[in-house]
C-alpha cells in the first residue's frame, strides 16, 4: 500500500520576461530557500531532489541539474532530473510523489527552473523568434522540424481539428473573454510576469495573429523563473505542519498519459486531447472523484493556449466536449461561478518558465486551498507535440 504524501512547503521566484541579474543557479537557490522557509525545515531534512528542467538549450548546457546539487546543498543525496516538454514540472512532482509514496524517501524537494529568454535572435534583434526556434528543436527531427514545426503550430493543429469536429465551440469572443478573465485574476499574484497587464476582450480580439487561430493575447508568454514544492510522507508531513502551523495539502490523485504523434487511421485520436482525458480519469480514480465539477473547487491548468485551456477543461470532464464555451457562457469560471480556474493568472499572465510552470501552478493551488478554505484542487500539465503529454494531480485539504 502506497504511503500518503502531502505538500508541506512551496515557493516561487518572481517570473520575468528576462532575469538579467540572476543565472538559473541563483533562481534555483532562491526558490529552494523560500520553500524551505515556508516549510520551516532545513535542507538537511530533505532526503532527495527531483529537478524539473525542460530544455538543455535554454540553460546552454546538457546536464543542467548537476551544478544545482551543490548550489542547493544536497551533497551526496539522490537527485534526478525530469524533462517532459511543457509537462516537465507536473511529471517531476509525479515522480517525487512516487518515490515518497513507495517509502524510498520521507521528504523530497521538487525544484523547477528555466531560463528561456537568454536565447536571442540577432537578425531580428529580439528573443522570441530564437525561443520559438529552440522549442522548435523539440519537433520530430526527420519530418517536421525543417518544415517549421513549432509548439504553437502543433497545438494549433489539435485545436483546429477539434474545431473541425465542433465548429460552434471556441468562439473568438469566448476565448477573448477567458484571456481577459485571467488577466484580471493575475492582479493578486505579485510573482507574475504580467501582473499589471489587464486586457479587455476587445483587446484580445484585436491582438495580432501569431499562428492561426491563436492571437497574441491567447498564448502563454515565455519567461524565466523557478518554483519549488516540498513533499513529505504522512507522519513527517504532520510533524512539519505542527511546527510551521500550515495545513498539509495532500496529493490524493496522480495520473499521466502520453499520446502518440502520428495522425490518421488508428493513430492519435485527432480532434481530441486524449492524454488529458486519460490522465484526469486516472487521477480521479485514485482520489475517488466521480463528478469533477461538483467535487473540485480550484483548477490550476497549464494554459499554453486559451483554446487548449477550454478543450482540456472538457477533456477533464468539467464541461462537455463541443460545449467548452459554457465555461464562460454559463459562468462556470467567471466571477461567482462554480470553479476557480487559474487564480494565478495561468501561464498566460504569470508566465511560462517551462520547468517551473506546473510547480508554480501547484504552489498557487496549495495557496488557494489553504487561504480560501477550498477542499480540493486540480493541477494540470501539458506538453510535447500535439499536446501529447498530460498530467493531472489532485490536491486536497482534509
Amino acid at each position: 500500500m502506497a504511503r500518503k504524501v502531502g505538500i508541506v512547503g512551496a515557493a516561487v521566484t518572481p517570473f520575468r520576461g528576462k532575469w538579467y541579474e540572476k543565472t538559473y543557479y541563483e533562481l534555483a537557490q532562491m526558490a529552494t530557500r523560500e520553500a524551505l522557509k515556508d516549510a520551516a525545515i532545513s535542507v538537511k531534512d530533505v532526503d532527495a531532489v527531483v529537478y524539473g528542467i525542460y530544455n538543455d538549450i535554454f540553460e546552454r548546457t546538457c546536464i543542467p541539474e548537476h551544478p544545482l546539487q551543490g548550489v542547493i546543498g544536497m551533497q551526496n543525496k539522490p537527485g534526478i532530473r525530469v524533462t517532459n516538454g511543457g509537462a516537465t514540472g507536473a511529471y517531476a512532482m509525479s515522480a517525487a510523489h512516487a518515490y515518497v509514496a513507495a517509502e524510498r524517501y520521507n521528504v523530497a524537494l521538487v525544484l523547477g527552473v528555466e531560463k528561456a529568454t537568454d536565447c536571442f535572435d540577432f537578425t531580428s534583434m529580439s528573443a522570441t523568434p530564437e525561443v520559438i526556434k529552440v522549442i522548435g528543436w523539440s519537433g520530430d527531427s526527420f519530418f517536421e522540424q525543417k518544415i517549421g514545426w513549432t509548439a504553437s503550430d502543433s497545438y494549433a493543429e489539435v485545436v483546429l481539428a477539434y474545431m473541425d469536429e465542433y465548429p460552434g465551440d471556441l468562439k473568438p469572443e469566448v476565448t477573448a473573454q477567458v484571456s481577459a478573465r485571467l488577466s484580471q485574476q493575475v492582479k493578486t499574484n505579485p510573482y507574475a510576469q504580467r501582473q499589471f497587464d489587464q486586457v479587455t476582450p476587445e483587446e484580445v480580439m484585436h491582438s495580432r495573429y501569431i499562428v492561426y487561430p491563436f492571437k497574441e493575447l491567447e498564448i502563454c508568454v515565455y519567461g524565466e523563473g523557478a518554483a519549488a514544492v516540498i513533499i513529505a510522507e504522512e507522519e513527517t508531513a504532520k510533524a512539519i505542519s505542527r511546527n510551521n502551523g500550515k495545513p498539509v495539502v495532500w496529493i490524493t490523485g496522480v495520473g499521466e498519459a502520453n499520446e502518440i504523434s502520428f495522425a490518421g487511421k488508428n493513430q492519435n485520436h485527432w480532434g481530441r486531447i486524449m492524454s488529458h482525458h486519460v490522465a484526469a480519469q486516472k487521477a480521479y480514480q485514485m482520489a475517488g472523484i466521480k463528478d469533477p465539477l461538483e467535487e473540485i473547487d480550484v483548477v490550476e491548468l497549464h494554459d499554453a493556449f486559451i483554446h487548449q485551456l477550454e478543450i482540456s477543461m472538457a477533456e477533464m470532464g468539467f464541461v462537455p466536449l463541443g460545449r467548452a464555451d459554457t465555461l464562460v457562457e454559463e459562468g462556470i469560471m467567471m466571477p461567482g461561478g462554480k470553479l476557480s480556474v487559474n487564480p494565478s493568472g495561468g501561464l498566460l499572465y504569470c508566465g511560462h518558465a517551462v520547468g517551473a510552470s506546473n510547480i508554480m501552478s501547484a504552489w498557487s493551488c496549495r495557496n488557494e486551498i489553504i487561504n480560501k478554505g477550498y477542499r480540493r484542487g486540480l493541477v494540470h500539465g501539458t506538453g510535447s507535440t500535439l499536446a501529447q503529454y498530460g498530467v493531472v494531480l489532485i490536491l486536497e485539504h482534509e
Partner: protein
Amino acid sequence: MKSPEKVIPFEFIPDKEGRIITINSENYLLMNDAFYTFYERSIGEFSPFFLAIKNEKRVLGCKCTKCGIIRVPPFVTHCPFCDFAPTELIEVEQVGKMLSTPPITYFASALFLDKAPFGRGRVILNGANTALSAMLYTTTGILVPGLIQKGTEVKVIFRDRRIGEITDIFCVPTAELTPEQIAKKGLQESELNWAAPKEPEFPKATADDIAIYKQSLKEMQALAGEMSKSKRARKAIEGWKRDIAVKTKAGEFAMFIDDGDFRIEEKKIASPDFVMACEDPRTLLDGLKYNGAITDSVILKKLWISKNIEFNTVFKLDRLARFLAREKKEQATR
C-alpha cells in the same frame, strides 16, 4: 560562382563580444554566445523515402504485412500494432486530402522568418492511411485562413533543387492547378504559376480622402513622438533600422525606425527598405493606436507589403503599439 549554402546562415552569427546592462545602479554582463553542434547525420531506415523524393520524385509509405495499414511517411520497419510484424515499402499517390484544417504561421521562428506566412498540416495521400506532415502554400499570394481546410484536396509539389530533406516537397491546393498538372507525377515548383507581388493601385483621392489623410498623418506623427519617448515602446524596435515608404490613396509618407527612434515624415524616399500600401491611412493609424493589429491588416489584404520577410517589421510595429498602450495602462493602474 555562388558559394554553397551553409548549415548556419552567416547572418545569424553574432560578433564575439558582450555588453553591460545597468539595473538599479548595478552592472550586469550580457555575453553573445552560441551553442552549436555539427552533424553528419544518419538517415538510416528513412533513406529510401528521402532518396525517392530527391532522385525519383516519388513518395513512399510502408505497408504492414499483417494488418495492411499504410503509413506515410514510412515511420516504422515493423508494425507496433501487430506485435511488430514487418512492413514493406510501397509508393503512394501525390494527391490527397487534408486530415484537418491546418494552422498558418505568421510569426515564425528565427529560422523561418523568411518563409512565413506558411501553413503546415496533415495530408492523407491517396493510397495511405496515415497523414504526412507537409508545408502548405498557395500560388495566389499570402495564405489566409479558409483557403485550405479539412478535406481540401492538395498536391505534392517537388522543389526544383532537392537535397534529400523533407523540405524538398510541399503542397498546394489542387484547385489552383490545371487538370494536367494534377495528373502529372513529380510536378515541380517552377511549373506552377506563382502570383508575383504587385503593388495595388488606388482610385483618385477625393477632398474628403485628403482631409482624412492629413488628419491621420497628424495623429500618427503624434503617436510616433510618444513611442520614441516611451522606454518600453523603444524596446520593441531596439537595434532595428528600416526606412519604409507608405503609399495611400491621398498621399505618400515615410516611416523611419532607427534603434528605438520612430519618426513619421511627409516625404517620398528614393530607396526604402520596403513599401507599404493601404488605400485608407486609418488602417495603419488604427494599428499604431493599438486598435487592431497591422499584421491582421496584411493578412486581410487591407495593407500590402512589398516583401513578405518584412512581416518581421510589421510585428515590431504591432509590438510598438502594444508596448505604448501597456505602458499607459500601467501608469494608470499603479
